[in-house]
């Protein structure tokens, strides 16, 4: 018996961390992934919230954009990492190879989620520094932490979207679909432009997108949301995530029954 005698939890944790380390390194070395996901939100914020708004009488816009660009900042790594990355690993056979090894499936998923969270943390770290020290945004400590917490938690529902796309689309198609979702959902959900400035039709459509609810939850922290109750957003977000996970599971089932 070559069975490992280490405590299973320790072993799982060790693999999870190592998978994360290499997942992160591998993503970081991929300019097509790292540059847009790290720089887009930061440059957008610098441009629209710091440069455009500087000296204005109100800090509402830089504060609003802090919340929504933060969500935008984790959307990228989450859905690109899962959507494109997973499709790619499936198409190249890397995923199949790993299934023949003792690698715990949980560690693999953990690594992707954690990698998205690390990228997200880097993005929101940069956004928060810009907001606090360049745009003049002041928030209570509890608000800074709540914003960071919600934004990082957003990795989960966004990863579920990516997982669903990655499970169904081939690599090339996945790139197109992910970009469409990335840009379309961000715009309609009010991550770029305040949602109350968008046509009512788009505000109604936005209800179906997790990004809308996450945006509203972060905006609620800073009292700039549309005023719907928290449970409304949580229930819809949970439902949407469940739908994505079911879709992903169906996609992978089809893949293993090949």
């Amino acid at each position, binding site marked *: *018996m*070559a*069975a*490992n*005698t*280490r405590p299973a939890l320790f072993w799982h944790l*060790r*693999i999870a961390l*190592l*998978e994360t380390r*290499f997942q992160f*390194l*591998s*993503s970081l*070395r*991929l300019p097509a992934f790292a540059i847009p996901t790290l720089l887009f939100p930061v440059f957008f914020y610098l441009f629209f919230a710091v440069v455009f708004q500087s000296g204005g009488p109100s800090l509402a816009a830089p504060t609003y954009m802090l919340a929504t660009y933060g969500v935008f900042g984790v959307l990228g790594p989450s859905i690109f990492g899962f959507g494109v990355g997973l499709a790619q*690993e499936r198409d*190249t*056979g*890397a995923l*199949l*190879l790993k*299934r*023949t*090894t*003792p*690698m715990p499936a949980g560690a693999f998923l953990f690594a992707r989620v954690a990698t998205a969270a690390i990228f997200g943390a880097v993005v929101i770290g940069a956004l928060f520094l810009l907001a606090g020290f360049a745009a003049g945004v002041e928030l209570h400590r509890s608000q800074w932490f709540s914003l960071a917490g919600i934004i990082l938690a957003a990795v989960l529902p966004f990863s579920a979207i990516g997982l669903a796309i990655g499970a169904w689309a081939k690599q090339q198609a996945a790139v197109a679909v992910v970009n469409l979702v990335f840009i379309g959902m961000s715009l309609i959900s009010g991550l770029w432009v305040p949602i109350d400035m968008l046509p009512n039709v788009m505000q109604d459509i936005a209800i179906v997108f997790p990004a809308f609810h996450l945006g509203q939850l972060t905006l609620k922290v800073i009292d700039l949301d549309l005023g719907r109750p928290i449970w409304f957003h949580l229930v819809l977000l949970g439902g949407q995530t469940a739908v994505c996970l079911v879709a992903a599971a169906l996609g992978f089932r089809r893949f*293993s*029954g*090949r």
Partner: protein
Amino acid sequence: MDPTPPAAASETGPPLASLSGVSHRYGDVLALDRLDLEVRKGEVLAVLGPNGAGKTTAVSLLLGTLTLQSGAARVFGSVPDAAEVRRRRGAMLQVSGVPETLTVAEHLALFRAYYAAPLPTARLLEMAGLQELRDRRFGKLSGGQKQRVMFALALAGDPELVFLDEPTAGLDLDGRRRLWDEIRGIKAAGRTAVLTTHYLEEADALADRIVVIHRGRLIAAGSPEEIKSRTAGRVVRCVTSIGLETVRAFPETASAETRGQHFEIVTGAPEALLRRMFQLDSGLSDLTVVGVGLEEAFLALTGDGADPEGGA
């Protein structure tokens, strides 16, 4: 029409891995047809067959990456995707790559971590001939180098049983011979290996035992010499007045069929065959004698002369 039955398992104790009566369909296509297969401890088993014969399907079932439809698949006495099995098994898949932005050493570090007692990195690099390429990213490697990395990853956990699914597919002659050298090394530590290939030469060079699969069925099994002797014949092509059934009845004839007005006869003894034919038909004409390709070899083994498109 009589597939050689697999050798009795009692020869070397219970098999390390086996497929029993396994059939597998992709839609309407029957990829495996009641296949029986055994892998014995310590051997390098080559699963030989033309493209589409069902080799990869058989291996995928033993790796647990494909869901079994009917029959039984056992590895180390367990189901193929049991955790215990994964720890003791390594695999090199036919279509497989790993993330291109990580280096050889990083990939090895990750795979080694999956196992309780992995082989040392230096040993793996040496076994796969990758010492010089240790810090090169996977994406910067040549096709042959990539295959050697995949080979090293298959051995990372010091496995007892290694599956190598068409390891040299797509490689040039040099790359192929290089990888052969590495594969030969895996027997050293008493490992068992299953190799799929559609090159008889490769099977001959690497395997202790060869099983031949055609259209999802086991059609022959034996030592490389046995298989070679059954396939190393000649094709005699001619126009003759002798009837097809008569030709097929000759003891020298392995298989025979008509192509247009020509006969094509596979035989291990072309001289004796031709002597016999000239006695019966002195007007035999348009004669050529050539070596068999693999396709003819399979035809010979199957005796399935009526269906020339098989095995493409």
